[in-house]
């Protein structure tokens, strides 16, 4: 999803990895984790893909930007294949790099709100890692519906592809939740959430990687990687 639809996330992530001097590589044959197929009922097709992807990733330390991939690798692979992969989400790596001072960031008093992706939060119980990172570098203001009670962005379960209007309507409700915090920026850690929430912002240009931050009444929607890169660049200036 990141690489093909929200490239600014994979770009920002790579930039951070380079700056922190992390040794990484991108697979030539990067496949699909199978999440989309599992959620939409294509069980048998999913299994084929999962077996193939597992073969390619076995023995590697896998870094993912996507909450859906993370849940699928961590939860579904052991269930479906009986095998585990060494997978971490970018939020975990970022926190580690900050602790080791491989990434140095400035603090900003600007208010930021955090949106819990369903696949990270409710499904995996990962609420704290991204919050810890944000709190250290900005003022975190919570939406009324947060963590376990967070409202879905509307993209999940194949709803965005099959029922785009429904999906957008839910995204609008989530943006209303976010806007009522008064924060200028929304940070999350799932490309599906970024993509769907951004798509309902005024002035949004499809297939564009530009952030609609200067549009009136709209929020700066960012993946955690973009948020961190922005804080690093401020530090450098």
């Amino acid at each position, binding site marked *: 999803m990141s690489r093909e639809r929200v490239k600014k996330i994979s770009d920002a992530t790579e930039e951070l990895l380079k700056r922190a001097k992390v040794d990484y590589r991108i697979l030539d044959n990067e496949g*699909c984790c199978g999440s989309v197929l599992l959620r939409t009922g294509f069980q048998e097709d999913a299994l084929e893909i999962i077996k193939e992807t597992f073969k390619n990733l076995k023995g590697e330390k896998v870094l993912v930007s996507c909450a859906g991939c993370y849940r699928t690798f961590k939860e579904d692979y052991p269930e479906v294949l009986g095998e585990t992969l060494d997978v971490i989400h970018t939020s975990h790596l970022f926190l580690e790099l900050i602790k080791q001072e491989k990434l140095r960031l400035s603090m900003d008093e600007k208010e930021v709100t955090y949106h819990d992706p369903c696949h990270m939060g409710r499904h995996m119980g990962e609420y704290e890692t991204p919050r810890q990172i944000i709190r250290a570098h900005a003022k975190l203001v919570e939406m009324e519906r947060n963590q376990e009670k967070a409202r879905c962005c509307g993209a999940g379960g194949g709803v965005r592809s099959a029922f785009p209007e429904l999906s957008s309507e839910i995204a609008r409700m989530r943006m209303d939740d976010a806007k009522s915090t008064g924060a200028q920026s929304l940070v999350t850690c799932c490309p599906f959430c970024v993509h769907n929430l951004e798509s309902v912002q005024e002035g949004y240009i499809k297939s564009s990687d530009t952030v609609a931050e200067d549009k009136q009444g709209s929020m700066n929607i960012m993946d955690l990687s973009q948020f961190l890169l922005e804080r690093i660049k401020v530090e450098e200036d």
Partner: protein
Amino acid sequence: MNDSSIKIMNKSFNILDKRRATLLQDEATIKLKERVKNIRENSVEHISPLLEKAQEKLQENGIEVILAKDAEVARQTIYQLVKEEDLVAKSKSNTAGEIQLTEYLESKEVKVLETDLGDRIVQFDASRPTHPIGPACHLDMGKISEIVSDRFQREVKAEPRAIMDSVKKDILEKIPQCKVGITGANSVAAEDGSLLMVHNEGNISLLTMLDLHIVLVGIDKLVPTLEDAVSVVKLETIYATGKTVPAYMNVVSSPSKTADIEQILLKDMYGAKKVVVIFLDNGRSKALKEKKECLWCIGCGACIVNCPVYTTLGPDFGYLRHLGGRGIVLSYFIDNDEVCYDSGLFKCTLCGLCTVECPMEIATNNMLEDLRSESVKKGIYPEKHGEIKENIKKRGSPFKPGT
């Protein structure tokens, strides 16, 4: 449902949600929740023996018991009991909604007097109920006054008491014409042979006084004892309304009787001369085998109040009076794959919030994911998902190149 109805519904839901918030965190509530979860899980595990026990005990208590394997049998059974009547009185019942009882009886020239205020308004409006306990959540006062004024052919002010009084007066005038009261039951105590009904308006009390009291109830509502049943409905009330107890809990364990003269048993004192219970299966035995979790439900409606899809689509996301994702699961067992698809099988974002909200912690998203897989096997899925599947298989990505 139109946008303004959805807005009004969500406003009602927000008020309800705020009212419940503190009570849900209360230690007593948390303890009760654990207790009821045990009761429900155990009861669902033992539906067959409970049903046998309930039949035996209810009959011992003088209540007639009929088993209905599906909606058609249940409708027919009830019609046979009321076919001589012009008008029957009814209370709010999701199970009656499931078999479309009111529509059926009216098509057979037996008029139905809905006695729950919200239900009566929805009946006048011919719209769909939006919450299991508050069916008229989607109508605002102005709209309700219009509906009621139109029905009574006189101006009823857009003021809550004026509306309530006008509907109440009409219902009270009509109840004496009724010999039959039809209700559901919120919980059934098998070992005691008792039926427990919950209400706030007092309407069920009136209905139990009519000559014949018909109780339509799903076999999933069985629990062992009356104490268990009271726990279940108490928790249901807390989650549905934000109050610890409802105004009324009626327990019916027999037709009306007295033994005040020399201990001689005389039937037919004030209340019903005859009580008939219809236990409805309608796919529940099938659900029990494949997705028993969906039967743990206590009917509080907590799952829909914050559901991102329900708060967008309203009752179009669900099956008849079984609203939201869990209703869609039921539709698969009560009806068939097509109906399940149309009820919104693929509209759930699988976010899992309903599981957090549900006092029984029913994992509806997992059930829907499994049912999608069954649906796909039969070739019933959104076209777009088929395209995405092909893309993934061809090039390892959901997206077409260059799009």
